């Protein structure tokens, strides 16, 4: 191995490649190692101004505390080995009188900025992108020439746009008039909150009422840019809000869909619905643990397996409930409500006994972590996106099931007129059981989805029960469309008010709104039209 390295080095020498020793500024590196804080800062600036990528190693070492000085030699120590900071040549044996070069916080900050600048010229695109991002926060005029130089070489449009904004920010702070005007115009393209703050500082009045910026044209331009940046920021905010609303709506929809079916069909309120959601979440947890212990390699795919398992487990529990309890209470909806509440309590305590009262951890698979960054401060998380798509899929499947299958036909028939359906030979009792199982299974799917975005604990269902009732009440029964509109509407409205008044007030206002809405339309938004007076 070592022989090969020698061989390569020799070849390089023979081929006339300049030896790597000749480049770094000796004075700067020495000052970096032995000078006081001020001198060190100067040295960092000097190294940055040179723009030599080899300075990266030295600065990184300074940042991590791996830089040592021995006399006037400067060493980069890594583990047991060391290299000379100037030449990059290995140093062995290590000199005995070496001392750590200490860096205080101010110097560390300068080192971080300097590293970002130096990495701008790295050949690797991701490194450059990260460096450009780091610089976008706060850079001062010392790095401006380097940013300009990097700009000349940069070909990637994303990085280029970022660097242009950074350069403009620096120039606006302290350049001549023409440059500042140009900078203000460049900043127009930004969508970042820090640019907004910067532009605000140009157009603001001071405490005594005079403008901090004397130049009127500049102020006018800045105002124009500010309006545009603010507009873009507002759009970003609106986009984020709409996404959050739709995301909440999709969760509500998933939680309420099963409830809407059973309520529409049988007129009973299933108070244990929240607990069926909880069971779905715990089923997901169990599947996750099985994958972790038996098939760690396929861990990322546990969710694909958990979806059907959650559906089947919850559906089985639901069908058992229907057979054992709810069936015997037909025609007594209020008693059904109480009995299902009791079932819910027992399920909660049962889960608590088996799994413990603490929340259990359900991990996101890799493909569901992270998100898409649409704008500097608007990130759409993948898990939410997946849940929205999942909800859409469940909805379509439900729609097809109700519209195209024999069971769907029966369910619709019994919902519209139970007695007449029974007369023409629909086995209403069996339809009830299957439909209840279907509703419970969808609750299980909701639990599976919820396990990906929140805590999984025995009380999980309780948090969603009131909300999903509200969706059903608002949407009316008998039609999927009502549930969909109600869920999405509630989600978006909730998030809108939340951004304006906070989460608790939003929830209260939404509940009050529903109570008032029911006054106007006691049957919800989409009631089945018919002449049935009242049951």
């Amino acid at each position, binding site marked *: 191995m070592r022989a090969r390295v020698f061989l390569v080095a020799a070849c390089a020498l023979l081929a006339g490649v300049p030896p790597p020793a000749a480049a770094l500024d000796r004075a700067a590196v020495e000052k970096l190692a032995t000078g006081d804080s001020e001198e060190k800062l100067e040295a960092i600036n000097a190294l940055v101004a040179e723009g030599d990528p080899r300075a990266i190693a030295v600065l990184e070492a300074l940042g991590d505390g791996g830089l040592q000085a021995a006399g006037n030699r400067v060493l980069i120590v890594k583990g047991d080995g060391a290299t000379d900071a100037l030449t990059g040549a290995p140093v062995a044996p290590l000199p005995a009188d070496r001392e750590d070069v200490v860096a205080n916080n101010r110097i560390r900050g300068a080192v971080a900025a300097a590293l970002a600048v130096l990495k701008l010229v790295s050949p690797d695109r991701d490194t450059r992108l990260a460096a450009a991002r780091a610089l976008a926060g706060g850079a001062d005029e010392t790095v401006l020439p380097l940013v300009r130089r990097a700009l000349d070489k940069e070909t990637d449009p994303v990085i280029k746009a970022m660097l242009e904004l950074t350069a403009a920010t620096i120039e606006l702070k302290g350049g001549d008039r023409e440059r500042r005007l140009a900078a203000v115009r460049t900043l127009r393209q930004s969508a970042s909150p820090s640019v907004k703050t910067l532009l605000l500082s140009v157009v603001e009045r001071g405490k005594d009422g005079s403008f901090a910026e004397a130049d009127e044209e500049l102020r006018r331009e800045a105002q124009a840019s500010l309006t545009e940046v603010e507009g873009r920021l507002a759009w970003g905010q609106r986009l984020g809000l709409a996404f959050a609303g739709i995301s909440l709506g999709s969760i509500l929809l998933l939680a309420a869909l099963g409830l809407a079916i059973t309520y529409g069909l049988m*007129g009973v309120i299933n108070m244990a619905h929240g607990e069926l959601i909880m069971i779905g979440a715990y089923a997901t947890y169990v599947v996750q643990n099985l994958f972790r212990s038996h098939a760690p390699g396929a861990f990322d795919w546990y969710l694909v397996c958990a979806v059907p398992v959650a559906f089947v487990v919850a559906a089985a529990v639901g069908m058992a409930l229907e057979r054992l309890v709810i069936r015997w209470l037909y025609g007594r909806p*209020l008693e059904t409500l*109480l009995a299902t509440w*009791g*079932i*819910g309590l027992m399920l*909660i305590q049962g889960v608590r006994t088996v799994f413990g009262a603490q929340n259990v951890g359900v991990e996101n698979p890799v493909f569901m972590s992270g998100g898409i960054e649409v704008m500097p401060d608007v990130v759409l998380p993948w898990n939410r996106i997946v849940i929205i798509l999942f909800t859409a899929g469940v909805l379509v499947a439900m729609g097809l099931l109700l519209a195209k299958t024999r069971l769907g036909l029966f369910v619709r028939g019994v919902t519209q007129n139970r007695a007449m359906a029974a007369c023409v030979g629909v086995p209403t009792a069996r339809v009830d059981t299957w439909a209840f199982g279907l509703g419970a299974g969808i609750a299980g799917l909701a639990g599976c989805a919820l396990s990906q975005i929140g805590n999984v604990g025995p009380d999980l269902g309780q948090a969603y029960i009131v909300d999903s009732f509200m969706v059903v009440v608002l949407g009316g029964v008998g039609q999927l469309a009502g549930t969909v509109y109600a869920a999405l509407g509630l989600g978006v409205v909730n998030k809108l008010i939340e951004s304006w008044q906070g989460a608790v007030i939003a929830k209260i206002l939404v509940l009050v709104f529903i109570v008032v809405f*029911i006054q106007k339309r006691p049957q919800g938004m989409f009631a089945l039209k018919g002449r049935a007076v009242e049951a």
Partner: protein
Amino acid sequence: MGPISATFSRLYGPRGWLVLGAVGAALFIVIPVFALAVPPGSAFHVSQYWVTLIGKIMCYAIVALAMDLIWGYAGILSLGHGLFFALGGYAMGMHLMRQIGREGQYQADLPDFMVFLDWKELPWHWSGSDQFWWAMLLVVAVPGLLAYVFGYFAFRSRVKGVYFSIITQALTFAAMLLFFRNETGFGGNNGFTDFKRILGFPIATPETRVALFAITGAMLIGTLLLGRYLVTSRFGRVLAAIRDAEQRVMFCGYNPVHYKLAVWTASAVLCGIAGALYVPQVGIINPSEMSPANSIEIAIWVAVGGRGTLAGAAVGAGLVNGAKSFFTQAFPEYWLFFLGLLFILVTLFMPNGVVGLADRLRGARRA
């Protein structure tokens, strides 16, 4: 429920009055004497724990009576009665907080939690809370007004059945969220506690406790008689008719809205009074009293005792809460199993509750 003429003829028969008198004697004479006059070492001594526990359960029994009035006799199942109970409790709690004076932890004029939040003066809704009569007015008026307004809109648009139940649940849930906020001005999570005195008397002495106990007992018997009077009157008959066939009652020329609204508001006021009696005895009120789970538990007290029997509802409250005290001490992990099972078994097998069961046994013996 037999023919109307049999059930609704008079307040109580001679046997009923006898039982009522015995209960009254136990509440006003036996327990106070055993608690105060008999020394702690004696076998007949009733400890403070029991006085407080029975006092608390009697407050629950008043709530159960109020619930039975609307559920048993008007067919309206409220899942939000805990809200009215808690509102009465909060109105009383505000007054008790003011009675602490400067003896709180911070020795300030304001209640401790306000000092903690760095408030400088009392918020507007606290004005007048240092007056006992004002607190009593709030105890009645706040639950009453809220119930009236809510009920007016709900009954006018003929919201009923499970829809009504669910909306009342949403109402108490929303109120719970509101009271959890510190900015609402009711102590947030912690609510009110650490009371020192009531009407100038120190709140924790045996004498005050027994006095509160006796007042609660009087209120319970009063509520029972009032309820009985209501349901045996013409008003009560119309209510039962609305419960059984609202359409027909309307076609007979009655407007059910007024009847429902009256009994609904009365029920809420009774709950508020029960809450006001509950707080000084238990010594704490916080937003968890408004949780939907608490309200739905009230329904099971009534169901266990027997719907539409009044006295049965009070008995049911005693049975369930007695069992709760026993279970949460002896087997805390089984309480929810027991409660859940109770919900299921009572609805499935005992539609008329304990009272119905007793009637059936008596009928079987006679036959």
